[in-house]
Every structure is written in structure tokens, then in C-alpha cells.
């Protein structure tokens, strides 16, 4: 087995036979990614244009923009995140149920863009984990579609085992040891 270049399956993979189910799950998640309507600035207009007739985001099965973050899978952070907006953005992100993904649309959400000033967060990835970065100021709708297809690829290649590790295996250096737990806004599924 080693000679063939196949690594020893981990305990998790022994216990769970995941491949087919996992593929189907990933496929179903990737094929119906519902974004939350969350426009911040200029890029939101291009996001709307991407949903409109000429580009038609709905072709990928993701045209159902949900207004409530509880029902959405994807947050397209379209625009500049200001210091005042950051807690709200984080809150909306926390309200979204797992599994969830984020696209940083535009330079501002990616790295602060042209707004190197006192009131802008220099990239939304400082607050929430971002899966796909789309540069441009604002990016054309085609870029959004391409980024979205990349996100689909990412979802298709994701693995339940990775998720398990991320959730239950502790990180090498936990930065939260010194912090006492606080009330979360909602209980997750347990």
C-alpha cells in the first residue's frame, strides 16, 4: 500500500465511510449556494448587475438571494467594511448556519482597496474567514461569476474529515485560553 503511494487511512476514515455520501453532499451544497443579500457599497451594484438579465447569477442555481442570514449559505461581502460596520458584519456571519462560505468581492473587502484611512477595516478577512477573493474596483460581474465557480470547486473538493478536524481537534496554539467563555447569540446544533 505504501509502495503505491497511498497513505494509511486515519482513524476517522476507518470509522466513517464518507466518500459517496460526501460527494453527494458537496454537490448538493455547491449547486444550491444561496447568498444573503448583503450589499455594502459600490460592489453591491455590480452584484445586482450579476443577478440581472445580462449575466444572470441564477444560472448556477444560486439566484435565490435570501434576506435572512439564517437561510443563506454564502455571504458576498460586496464593498468597504468600515469600523462601525464590522461588528454587524460579524454578527450577520455568526447568524448564518453552517456550512457557510464568504466571498470578498472587490478590493475593499479584499484588502481595504483605495480606502487606506482611519475608518476602514483593511480587508474583511480580518474578521471573518474568506473563501474566495475577487479583486477589482468594482469587479465586473464576470469576475463574480468566475469567483463563484471557484467557490463551487472549493465546496466540491471539501471534506467532512477536514471539517471534523477543524471543529474538534484543538489548534496548535490556542489564542483563547485566557478568555472566559461568554454568552453566544445562538446555540449551534449539537
Amino acid at each position, binding site marked *: 500500500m505504501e509502495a503505491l503511494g497511498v497513505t494509511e487511512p486515519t482513524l476517522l476514515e476507518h470509522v466513517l465511510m464518507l466518500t459517496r455520501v460526501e460527494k453527494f453532499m458537496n454537490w448538493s451544497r455547491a449547486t444550491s449556494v444561496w447568498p444573503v443579500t448583503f450589499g455594502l457599497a459600490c460592489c453591491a451594484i455590480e452584484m445586482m448587475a450579476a443577478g440581472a438579465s445580462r449575466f444572470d447569477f441564477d444560472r448556477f442555481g444560486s439566484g435565490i438571494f435570501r434576506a435572512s442570514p439564517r437561510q443563506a449559505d454564502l455571504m458576498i461581502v460586496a464593498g468597504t467594511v468600515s469600523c462601525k460596520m464590522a*461588528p454587524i458584519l460579524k454578527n450577520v456571519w455568526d447568524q448564518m448556519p453552517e456550512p457557510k462560505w464568504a466571498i470578498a468581492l472587490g478590493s475593499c473587502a479584499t484588502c481595504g482597496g483605495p480606502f487606506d484611512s*482611519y*475608518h476602514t*477595516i483593511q480587508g474583511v478577512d480580518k474578521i471573518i474567514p474568506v473563501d474566495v477573493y475577487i479583486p477589482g474596483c468594482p469587479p465586473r460581474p464576470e469576475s463574480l461569476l468566475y469567483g463563484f465557480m471557484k467557490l463551487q470547486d472549493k465546496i466540491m473538493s471539501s471534506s467532512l474529515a477536514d471539517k471534523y478536524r477543524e471543529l474538534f481537534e484543538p489548534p496548535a496554539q490556542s489564542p483563547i485560553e485566557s478568555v472566559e467563555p461568554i454568552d453566544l447569540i445562538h446555540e449551534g446544533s449539537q
Partner: protein
Amino acid sequence: MSHVHDPKAAPNRKINLPKTAPVPSPGAHAADVKATQAAEEAKWQKTLADYEIARANAISEGKEPPKPPVRHAVKADAHDMRWPVPVEAQDPDLHRLRELLGGAVEECFEQAGELVCQVKKEAILDALTICNQDVALRYEMLADMTATHYPGGWGFNFSIVYHLTCIRRRKRLRLRILILEGFEPESATQVYPGANWLEREIYDMLGVRFANHPDMTRILCSEEWEGHPLRKDYPAVGLGQRDIDCREDRSGVLTRKTMEAAGHLGINLKPLKAE
């Protein structure tokens, strides 16, 4: 995660305070022109004197004397650009204003077709009321209002400008006051209700408070914000409020703590208050 107030840690947080206070006025402009001419004249005289010395030296050493300097005439400007010079007030509105306000008017002039009237800071409410209610003036709308910080100003730190519009006569007027740090001018909301947010913005951005304002709170930045961003002594990249970085925080607890410290988190989640 914490706020960085140390300029050494963030070198681009350094600021250069301006030395001068650019407040346009005809007198200042005339003085400026005069000073420029005097400087040029002095330069020319120095050139002449230098030439004389050089010539005397050359003659005494037996060399050929240098060419005498030529004073160039001011070149005709090849550009499509004419700097608009502030001129004395000619518009009847300004005369009327001066008549009504009397000694409260400090300066009246026109620049680039704009009417400017600088009044005493205590008289601003009177001036606004007169502009709004006088039959001959009737400036119905406060189009804009803003302030400028002059750390290098002599006798003042801020100028506040009011841009008034008369819709019926299609006229515009700028009122200006100069104030010191700590002075609270009367709020314009009593005359123009639309000044409410404008004054809040000035307070938020520059730290000028207004007396008798109904709701003198910050408007653009959050309530807990430190400093007033549009002051000249405030670095463009802020005092560190934006430098949140929670990328290492996998569980999100730390992020939440930071966010809570920043306030405004309990949106729509606070329990209903019983009566």
C-alpha cells in the same frame, strides 16, 4: 488586536502640521501680492548688488567683466488658467447684509463669482436669521455647512462656513466665522432645521460643539470613537481603531470580545424593556 497609538510602531501614522492658515480674503491677498513683489524686488536688488561686486572684482583682477543681469518681464501665461482674485464686494446682497448687520461684519468680498461674508462669531445666529428672513435677501436653504481646522491659525483654530441658497433669485452666499478651540457657536438649527446633521458631522469630524443643538452626538463614527478625524493633527490612517485582526482567532470568541468592545453589537437582540 489592541489599538496602536505608538507612531513608531506604525510609521505612516506620522503627521505634518501645517504652518499657515489659508483663509482667503482680499486684504490677505493684497498683502500676499505685495510681499511677493517685494520679495522679487529684493531678489533683483540682490542680483544687481551681486553683479556689481562681481564686476568690481573682475575689473580689479583684470578679467573680462560678467554680463549684466537682465530682468525678465513677467511672461504672458501660456495656460488657460487665471487664478480668481478676491475683490471687494459689489453685489447688492453683500451691501444689504453689511447695512443690516453693521459692526458684526468683519469682511465682505467676492471670489470666483461667490459672495463671501465673514461675520463675528457671536453674531452668526443673527446673520443667519437676517439672511433667512429679510425680505430683500430671503436665503431659504442652507445648502451646506462645514468647518476647517487651522492649527497654524493666529487667533483662530477653526473656520465654519455656511453656504446659503436663495432659490427664487438663484443666488448663493457664503457666511464664515472664525473661532478658537473650545468656543461653542450658536446652532443654526433654530433657523435652518437641515443644519442638524451638518453640525453633528462637524462635531464628529472636527470636534466643534454647537450651543443649543438638539442632539449633539457623533454621527458618522461610533459613539466610542477617539479623536476627531478631520483635524489636521489626526493621522489619516487613524489611531489604531481599524487595526482589528482576528485572523488567528479560530473560535471567534476573541473577535466577539473585540467587537463588543467596539459596541453596537446587540442589534435586534436586546430584550424588550418592560414598562
